[in-house]
Structure formats: structure tokens, C-alpha cells
């Protein structure tokens, strides 16, 4: 089947991509600005075609645990929410990481803290990449900056999650969720068969055949020595991910005197600002981390040798800024320009902010 070019909202794109990548289940609870994800799934009725299960849960607490249950049987399952809902999910996310379960999570961020605002924000960066729940864990975190990436990261997220047995989070925001852009939808991939699941997920609790030891999907281990070992093995996987799965995009970085670092929708705004600054003769580049964990520290460290300063632009008070500063380790100053409360900066504001540091 051919790829299809259509005009979709980021949220709608997630739903289409989920069905097409052969997801087995979606469990969610409505919250602005991402409710179109479940609405689109319900409209598309994938249970009639691919057999994908879609269920509106009673809360985000329930939806993440449904995802836990589905993942425990080796199925490709996902949920989506926005910031306050993702806060509610932190228990389930920690348990999922403790049980080393693959799953896809989507956070279409809105401004906080608390009920905050329904307008776009990137203020859940810390929550996502530093571990919002308890315990030593990481989430593979993909930050889309276009509707096309909303599509592409669904399949990629599942792939990475199953490869490393680490939950994957697509960390989007209200801009990317609500905006429409043309997207190429991939062809339909069949859902995995029971045999494929058994081969790919020998750990899955999906019914113990005679001759196989029972599978228990759990995060519990009361023997400290065993528990430490479990954690060490997990940390080993984290190091492997850090070594192999860093993704980022460079825009006019090669000859840059100044570097803007931004992800997601902020990076789109910054790209306009960079074009504008270049037209004024100021050599600015944009580095866009695509994976927020693993973070592109090495490339930032490299540019720290070449540029005069860096500036992070985020829809928050300066969260990724800390990781950039860790990456450059004091070699250059890392300024921050951020907007909060649901305000998306304009390219002009970013341009002015950078010029104030020349």
C-alpha cells in the first residue's frame, strides 16, 4: 500500500499512526489539549479493521495501569494525556519502568503547575527526563517538532521501547498537538501474531505453556542484593541507549558563532528567528535535540568549543537549559529565553533575546 499525504492535526496524526504501526491497544482519559487522539481513534474504529482495542478509562491512573497490563502480555499498547494527567500516571510509569515494560506514552504538554492552563508549554521536561515517579529510571523521550514527527515517532517509539524494554515518551506540546500540517501516513503494518509476541517477548505473562517457567511481570524484589543487581542491569541498558540512540537536528550550525538550543515547537519558532538573524548578518545556528533522553550532550560539547555563547529557548523557566549547561560544562555561557503560562514566543522575541547577548 502507498504512503498517503493528508492534512492532520498532530493529535489526529498520533491516532492514525498508532493504528498503522500495528498497535494492539490504546487506553486513555480525555484532557485538553490532546483529546483528539482518543476521539480520532473512536472515529476510526480500528477494532473493526486491525483489531486494535481502544478504551476510555475512568482516570489516567487507570489508563496507565491498563497499559501496564497490556504491556505485561507483550502487546503494543499506548496511552496519551496532557500534563496534569501525566502527573497522575507517574505511579504507573514508575511501576512500568520497574517491571521493564515496553510501552508508548504521549504527553501533549500544557502550562502548569497544577491545573495551570490548557495552552502550550514545555514545562514537563524535568518530569519526563529526570524521572517524575520514584526510583532510578529513565524514559526514552522523543520531542516532535512537526506533525510528521508525531506520525514517525509512534512507530519509532514502539521500536525503541521494545528494543530496550524502556517506556518511551513522545513529549509534544499544545502547538504540535493542535496544529495541522500535511503528513505522509505510512502503510499499515499488521499487528504481531501470538507466535511473534512469544518470540519477541519471552518474558510476557500471556499464559504459561507446559514446559516454560511461569512469567511474572513485577517491579517487586525484596532481596536488596537481587534488587541492586536488577537496577544495575537496567542502568547498563540506559548506558547503551545513551551510547546509541541520541538523535538531534542541526540547522545552520556549521559556521555558527552563536547557538540556539530548542526542542519541539520552540525549535520551530527558533528556526524562523535563525533565518531572520542570518539575514541580519548574525551567524546563528539551531541545534534541536530530538531525543531529550538520551540527551545530545556530545555534540553540544563539541559546539561549546566553537561558539561564543548558547541560548536555550523553551516554553518553561529553563529546564533543558540545565542539561545544556551540564553538556558544555562551563565552556560557554548558556543563556535562557523562556515563556511560561501558555505563551509561545514569537520569532521576533527570540531574535531580540539573542541579540541582547551579542
Amino acid at each position, binding site marked *: 500500500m502507498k504512503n498517503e*499525504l493528508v*492534512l492532520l492535526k498532530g493529535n489526529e496524526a498520533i491516532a492514525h499512526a498508532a493504528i498503522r504501526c500495528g498497535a494492539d491497544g490504546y487506553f486513555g482519559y480525555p484532557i*485538553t*489539549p490532546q483529546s483528539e487522539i482518543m476521539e480520532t481513534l473512536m472515529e476510526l474504529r480500528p477494532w473493526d479493521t486491525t483489531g486494535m482495542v481502544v478504551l476510555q478509562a475512568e482516570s489516567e491512573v487507570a489508563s496507565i495501569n491498563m497499559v501496564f497490563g497490556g504491556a505485561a502480555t507483550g502487546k503494543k499498547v499506548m496511552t496519551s494525556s496532557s500534563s496534569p494527567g501525566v502527573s497522575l500516571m507517574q505511579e504507573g510509569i514508575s511501576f512500568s519502568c520497574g517491571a521493564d515494560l515496553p510501552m508508548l506514552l504521549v504527553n501533549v504538554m500544557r502550562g502548569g503547575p497544577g491545573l495551570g492552563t*490548557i*495552552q502550550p508549554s514545555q514545562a514537563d521536561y524535568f518530569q519526563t527526563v529526570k524521572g517524575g515517579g520514584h526510583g532510578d529510571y529513565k524514559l526514552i523521550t522523543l520531542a516532535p517538532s512537526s506533525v510528521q514527527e508525531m506520525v514517525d515517532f509512534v512507530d519509532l517509539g514502539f521500536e525503541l521501547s521494545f528494543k530496550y524494554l524502556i517506556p518511551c515518551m513522545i513529549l509534544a506540546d*499544545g*502547538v504540535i498537538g*493542535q*496544529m*495541522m*500540517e*500535511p503528513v505522509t501516513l505510512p502503510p499499515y503494518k499488521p499487528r504481531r501474531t501470538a507466535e511473534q509476541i512469544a518470540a519477541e517477548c519471552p518474558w510476557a505473562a500471556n499464559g504459561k505453556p507446559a514446559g516454560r517457567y511461569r512469567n511474572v511481570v513485577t517491579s517487586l524484589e525484596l532481596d536488596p542484593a537481587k534488587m541492586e543487581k536488577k537496577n544495575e542491569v537496567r542502568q547498563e541498558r540506559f548506558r547503551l541507549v545513551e551510547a546509541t540512540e541520541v538523535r538531534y537536528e542541526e540547522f545552520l550550525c556549521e559556521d555558527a558563532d552563536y547557538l540556539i538550543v530548542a526542542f519541539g*515547537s520552540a525549535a*520551530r*519558532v527558533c*528556526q*524562523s*528567528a535563525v*533565518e531572520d538573524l542570518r539575514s541580519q548578518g548574525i551567524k546563528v545556528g539551531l541545534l534541536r535535540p530530538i531525543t531529550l533522553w538520551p540527551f545530545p550532550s556530545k555534540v553540544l560539547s563539541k559546539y561549546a568549543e566553537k561558539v561564543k555563547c548558547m541560548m536555550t529557548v523553551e516554553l518553561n523557566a529553563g529546564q533543558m537549559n540545565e542539561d545544556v549547561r551540564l553538556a558544555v560544562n562551563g565552556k560557554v555561557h548558556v543563556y535562557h529565553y523562556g515563556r511560561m503560562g501558555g505563551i*509561545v514566543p*514569537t*520569532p*521576533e*522575541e527570540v531574535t531580540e533575546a539573542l541579540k541582547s547577548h551579542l
Partner: protein
Amino acid sequence: MTKEAIIIAGFGGQGVLSMGKILAYAGLIEAKNVSWFPAYGPEQRGGTANVTVILSDSRISSPVLNTFDTAIILNQQSLDKFESKVRPGGILVYDPQGISRKPTRTDITIYTVNAMEIATEMDNVKAFNMIVLGAYLKVQPIVRLESVMTGLKKSLPERHHKLLPMNQAALIKGGEMVESLSV
């Protein structure tokens, strides 16, 4: 045309978002890069609504803008908010109905279309946004009317396809009735 950034603003229920969507679809059909970004949330339900549509021959960077090539304005609040955000030399199209404080800019081209009046005459108030779109495309033909009709067909559920001829008539009527305020 390399890039056209349009803000469409009015009351929720006037078809602001769908007008933007149809415009974006028409751009897509003509193989342009397009983006459509709404002010979302409770605003959609009765308050003011606006959407930023960008059509471009090159990759679109920011979908969120502070200045626009064109503003399509359908109520007083939106005029007050967006008149100043049209770039010098840009275009402002508005329906005078309900507008008490008229635009004052002299460095932009201003057009009016009595869309609500025309829609009432056509006995179809739902055609309102298509009349406005027709007026805009007459003065700034960034996409062809055929592309708009194809876009409309794509974005309308099949059960509403019987409404296509009426929408086409509204587009054409809007184009005929647009008036320039500038000398």
C-alpha cells in the same frame, strides 16, 4: 508568492477554523507547504476564535507568528487585536457588519465584504465563511478556486457533499462582492 501568513479571527461558530482548514487543504492540493494553528480551548465555544494559516513554497518554520501578511477579520474584538499585526503593505479583509470602530491603518490594503448580508440574501447563513474566503481569494489569489473546492470535498464528510454547489456559489459571490476601501 513564496509565503503567505494569514490570521483569520472572529467569533466561534462563524466558521473561522474551518475556513482556515479549507484554505490549508487547497494549499496542500497545490503541493505547497501549509500549517494551520488554532487558538484552541474554550475559546472555540462561543468566544473569539482565530487560526493562523501559512502557505509557503518552502519549509514552514514557526507556525506561531506575531505579524501576518493578511488578516481576515469577522468581529470587532479581532479587528482591535489584529489590525496592528498586519505587516506594512499587507491586506486586511473584514465584514463591516458589527464593526463600529473601523480600521485606521493607511499602510495596508483594506477590503470589505458584506458577507453576512450576502449569506442572508442567499438564504444560507452557513455559507458565510465561504463568501469571506471567496472575497479574500479574489484580492489575493494564492490558491485556485478549484483547489478550494477539492479541499472542501476532502474535508467535508460525504453526507455533506450535497452542500458543495452552494459553497461554490458562495465563493464566487464573495469574489464578486469584495470592495476595496483604499484609494
